[in-house]
């Protein structure tokens, strides 16, 4: 039991190392509970978006349009909130989310083009539509609509999403189908998993997480804005990086938990680099170095663990062989 907990706690090491590192450099900032709380709050949106991205990735759908989808939903939500109030805010993301999910399902299922290429086309389309809807202007959300941007609301929404992501990954048929489909679509199809239904369900679930991200983003930022054509992909890249970090810990914890680790790591880096006044042009370099170190160390540890397991398997096989040989010898002698 204790070993199991330690095994799971390993994924917290990068978070602790990064936090302690910045704590050592700026104890006045990172020693405060408010900073810790801020870091966690900043990690929520990328994390929920990361769950959307991870679902698509697991199903073999490399979808870069999730960022553009989030911006589109945000703009629709703010626009509808002007006439329908808070209900409009919710309705906006739901309507935009449903439309987006239907469109993506049709395109990803019926087109022979690679989902990645198709998703870039969708990014252009959504950016254009968002710019048209927002009249190429920023949209401000009035103060009474910002309830969902408060820390308590964010925490509740996050926990609900975590429960949903964890349940989908671990305990649902669709979660298993997504993994099977992502592993090998041919084998999955041969085993009765229908590609159309799996892709469609994946896209709808992913859009659901995107909708929550959009809702939190507009509530935290008190507004929404259209983006330039491919600008929204930056948002997806952060989620993809968090996904890769999560994937390296997949042997220790579920992907949904690993995603939290990845997102929190990036949030610590974001806040930490500002606090040590790191020049902006070096930020990318530092983030890249951190990612390389993290991935290398994790892969080394995973390889070491795999070697250990392999050695153990070999030892058991050898013992079995030896015991079989000795029993054969005994039988022969008896005859």
């Amino acid at each position: 039991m204790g070993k199991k907990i330690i095994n799971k706690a390993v994924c917290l090491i990068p978070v602790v190392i990064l936090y302690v590192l910045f704590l050592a450099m700026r104890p006045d900032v990172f020693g405060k509970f408010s900073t810790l709380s801020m870091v966690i709050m900043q990690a929520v949106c990328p994390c929920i978006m990361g769950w959307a991205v991870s679902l698509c990735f697991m199903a073999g759908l490399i979808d870069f349009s999730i960022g553009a989808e989030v911006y589109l939903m945000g703009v629709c939500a703010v626009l509808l909130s002007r006439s329908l109030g808070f209900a409009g805010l919710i309705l906006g993301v739901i309507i935009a989310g449903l439309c987006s999910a239907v469109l993506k399902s049709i395109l990803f299922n019926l087109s022979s083009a690679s989902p990645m290429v198709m998703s870039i086309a969708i990014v252009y389309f959504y950016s254009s539509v968002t710019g048209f809807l927002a009249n190429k202007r920023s949209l401000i959300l009035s103060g009474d609509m910002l309830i969902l941007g408060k820390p308590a609301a964010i925490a509740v929404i996050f926990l609900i999403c975590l429960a949903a992501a964890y349940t989908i990954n671990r305990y649902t048929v669709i979660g298993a189908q997504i993994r099977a489909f992502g592993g090998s679509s041919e084998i999955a199809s041969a085993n009765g998993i229908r590609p159309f239904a799996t892709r469609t369900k994946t896209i709808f679930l992913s859009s659901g997480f995107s909708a929550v991200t959009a809702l939190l983003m507009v509530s935290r930022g008190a507004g929404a804005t259209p983006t330039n054509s491919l600008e929204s992909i930056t948002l997806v890249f952060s989620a993809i990086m968090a996904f890769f970090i999560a994937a390296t810990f997949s042997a220790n914890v579920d992907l949904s938990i690993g995603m939290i680790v990845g997102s929190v790591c990036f949030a610590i880096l974001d806040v930490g680099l500002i606090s040590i006044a790191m020049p902006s042009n070096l930020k990318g370099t530092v983030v890249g170095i951190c990612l390389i170190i993290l991935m290398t160390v994790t892969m080394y540890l995973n390889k070491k663990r795999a070697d250990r397991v392999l050695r153990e398997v070999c030892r058991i096989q050898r013992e079995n062989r030896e015991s079989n040989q000795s029993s054969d010898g005994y039988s022969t002698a008896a005859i």
Partner: protein
Amino acid sequence: MKGKRIVSILLAVSMVAMLLGACGGNNASSAAAPESAASSEAAAPAESAAEAPAGQNTAAGSDGPICKIGMISYNTGDATITPMYKTIENALAAWNVEVVYASADMSDSEATITAMETLINQGVDGIVHFAMMEESANLVISKMCQEAGVYLVILDGDALTKSENFPALQNNPYLVALCGADTKARGYQVVELLAEAGCKNIGLLFPPEGMSTYGERQTGAKEAAEALGLTIVNVQEDIMQLVSPSTGYDATSSMLASYPEIDGIAIGIMTQMCISGVAKAAQEAGSVKVAGIDFDENTFSLMEGENVAGFNAVPFGQFYYAVVALVNACTGNPLSDELMVITIPSKNYASTEEAADYYKIWDGGNGYAYTDEEMMQMLKIYNPDFTADDLYAIVADSFNYAAELEKR
């Protein structure tokens, strides 16, 4: 097979929808051109055209467009671009100038150069070009136009005058004008807003100093801080932090958590895209003031709050003045034999009323600050007495002019 056909149809419909979305306004302006030119206001300038001295081209006797101008249609969230384009399009329609468009991303130099080639191949007489952040791209475009014999104006090109490549640009006889607000002055002014609001320690969310087009804003802000006795505690130069309200919120809350002594934040670029998030983070941190460069009508409500100290703005019509120079050159009547550098004034707005007035003057961003008749008078083809000095005077008076207009 049937599925693929459906997808193809859907994609085609999507493409058409995108085209309509992006070019809807432009089509309207192109279509409006002949009507505007035929308006009664055009009658008066036509009379003066008859008195044009020998050697100058006039519009007399011509029914078709007086020239053909190419512009790039940008898909951008920058709220200042749309009203600026509307101002230009209104003028081109009034002058009976044919407009053709090519599309590109504002930050994509390669796509912009390709778009320029497209415009040149369409036989345009002149091109309106937004300065690219990569300076080499501006040089390439300038050379392309020179080789093709197409006149060019570069918008937001004021910073190019300080570049080491400026002599190369000056040697291009087809480069008519560089036009833009004084970037350094705008950086200075936005910090003045914070000083007036009582700030002592400020943080900057500014483009990097090395950036060719907007880098000088930070230099101006630093000069202002020194002159006004303010301390710049932290500078964030990652403009990707300013692309949306939520990223602006995160960047500001991180900065304020790291430097609690900050009591004012100046935004040096894309203010209207991130201001709501920045102002929210500032409000949550207490009495932190925020000021920014550029704004739109949707951000008015934020000025009512105690945290927003104000905005710095340039006249929406700022680039209209460059197009005056361009159309004059394209019709064979250049205003100057040398490259014109048109520097646009900028101004601080510290209250909702002032900001609302600004919008009213510029017709809510619809770009109708000048009447058709007044615009006609700025073309030598209709008013042979119009000179470069007259244009410079109009530019210098653009804010006063706006005040005059308000009185009418």
